[in-house]
């Protein structure tokens, strides 16, 4: 990934009738980046992607591609290709004809087209499928053909809208690795849309978390997971304990009546905040060693770990641990200072959207 901006979305606003789908959205995508738009269904991911692809025109704002304003260019005039959620293969054409479609329009030579098709079929591991019809292929195979059809045109950017959404779990996992491999082999920019946080964490260089048409946070998967900027991101990315608390002073936060040492500074004295603590970051210790005491109320075996709920200071704490504490036992709760993530509580109306509306 280079530092050069390839796509720049500037102040994009899009409305359908009265409902504002994207409100003053700003985002840049760097060359060779694997960028994922992540968010609950209906938050505007597809709309954003369609604006980049040229299938929608924003009401306000600009789309800059490689330094040029392409906001009003038609899809067939843009140097990018899309992989659609439902494959969108041409059912009356063979696989070969499907893949050759874009190259024939660009009037490439017969030999060039043939070489490209052979190369693309090998790349997606579907050598020898050229004469089949799309209907005779499985969902995963069809999706790989859709990818092959897009990449033979050597786009600078590949746009993918939930390309694995229709596949079953096993196939989806295989395809995730396949996509990462493709991205590395081709060295092009991927803009990927998904509502699946695991998929986003696995594949992306950069994740853009969206909610109700607003960007909530942009960052690497580690940043998004470990340092969520607000309660929405924390809740959407994995399970977590999100608790209202008060900052006592720099590096000290009062959670449900007990003082915890943390690493954050600059919030001001007695400032109300939200804290996020990941379930795997809570250590269960002997009652007298804990910062607060509690009682285990439920226990589920999850394979790699136990999932427990601990009632302490008037709240259920979600805990993941490889050590078992039986239901009813008394435990102490400790959290390492750098595992406590402090977030500003939303105040203005603009920030209001970030409040959690998804279970």
């Amino acid at each position: 990934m280079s530092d050069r901006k390839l796509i720049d979305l500037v102040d994009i606003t899009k409305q359908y009738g009265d409902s504002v789908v994207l409100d003053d959205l700003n985002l840049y995508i760097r060359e060779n980046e694997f960028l994922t738009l992540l968010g609950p269904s209906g938050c505007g991911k597809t709309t954003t992607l369609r604006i980049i692809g040229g299938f929608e025109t924003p009401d306000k704002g600009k789309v800059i591609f490689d330094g040029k304003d392409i906001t009003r260019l038609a899809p067939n005039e843009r140097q990018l290709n899309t992989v659609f959620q439902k494959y969108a293969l041409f059912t009356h054409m063979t696989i070969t004809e499907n893949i050759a479609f874009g190259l024939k329009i660009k009037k490439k030579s017969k030999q060039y087209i043939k070489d490209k098709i052979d190369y693309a079929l090998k790349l997606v591991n579907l050598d020898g499928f050229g004469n089949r019809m799309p209907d005779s292929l499985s969902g995963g195979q069809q999706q790989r053909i859709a990818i092959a059809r897009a990449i033979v045109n050597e786009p600078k950017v590949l746009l993918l809208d939930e390309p694995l959404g229709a596949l079953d779990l096993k196939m989806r996992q295989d395809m995730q690795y396949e996509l990462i491999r493709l991205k590395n082999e081709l060295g092009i920019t991927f803009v990927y849309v998904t509502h699946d946080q695991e998929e986003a964490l696995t594949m992306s260089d950069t994740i853009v978390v969206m909610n109700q048409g607003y960007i909530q946070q942009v960052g690497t998967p580690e940043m998004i997971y470990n340092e969520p900027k607000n309660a929405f991101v924390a809740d959407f990315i994995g399970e977590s304990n999100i608790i209202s608390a008060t900052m006592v002073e720099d590096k000290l936060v009062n959670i449900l009546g007990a003082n915890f040492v943390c690493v954050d500074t600059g919030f001001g004295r007695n400032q109300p905040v939200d804290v996020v603590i990941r379930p795997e970051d809570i250590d269960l210790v002997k009652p007298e060693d804990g910062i607060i005491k509690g009682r285990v109320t439920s226990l589920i075996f999850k394979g790699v770990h136990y999932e427990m709920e601990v009632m302490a200071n008037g709240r259920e704490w979600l805990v993941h641990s490889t050590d078992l504490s039986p239901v009813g036992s008394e435990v102490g709760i400790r959290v390492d200072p750098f595992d406590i993530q402090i977030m500003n509580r939303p105040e203005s109306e603009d920030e209001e959207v970030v409040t959690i509306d998804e279970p």
Partner: protein
Amino acid sequence: MVNAIKKFIQKFYLGIMLLFLYAPILILIVLSFNKSKSRSKWGGFTLDWYRSLFESSDLLTALYNTLLIALLSALGATLLGTMGAIAINRMRKSTRTIMMSITNIPMLNAEIVTAISLMLLFIAVREFIPNFQLGFLSVLVSHITFNIPYVILSVSPKLKQTDRSTYEAAMDLGASPIMAFFKVVLPDIMPGILSGFLLAFTMSLDDFVITHFTKGPGLDTLSTKIYAETRKGIQPEIYALSTILFGAVFLLLVLVNLRKDKNQADAKPRR
């Protein structure tokens, strides 16, 4: 035993039904091969009536008119109907439902009402363009008009099946909107267009009422010709002609239905 009787009654009932439906046409067909001019005596097999039919230039002109009008009106209706279906398909759902109902009404409307209103329209046109005569053109326009709904009805389901994203995918791969339509959308809906064309052709071939009211004095199609002839007294050539007409329509309908079955069989494995 009871079962056997039940079976027999069922078969008998079906037989009677078919007899009532097809006996008149069967009699017509038989008479067209009857050497005797009598309607009640079999005078031996002959093809004379068919021969003299093809020697009668009046009837041949009528046949030519019928086929030409059927072909041209089917082509016109297919073009306009397909364009209409595409436009309707892209409307919002509420508008689409209203438009589909509007296009369906002429099919359910009594034919005589459509015929008379078309006639009145052409007479009104004559007020403004005195040179305009009822004739080939007015019949052609009428046939195109009543055929359009049938084409829309055959093309619409195919359009609904095709995914809009294939059209977008074609543009994504560099095709202009027009190219994307001809290369991707049109092949997908072609079976519906062909069925619509055949149906329109059959309907035009078959029509009497609308032609009768819009044709004016100079022009005759087979159905109006036969009608005129029967008023003078039925000649056996008319049996021959009617048999041919029935055969042609029957063949076309079988073709349309075979296509429909095939389309449905094709459509099943798709999502």
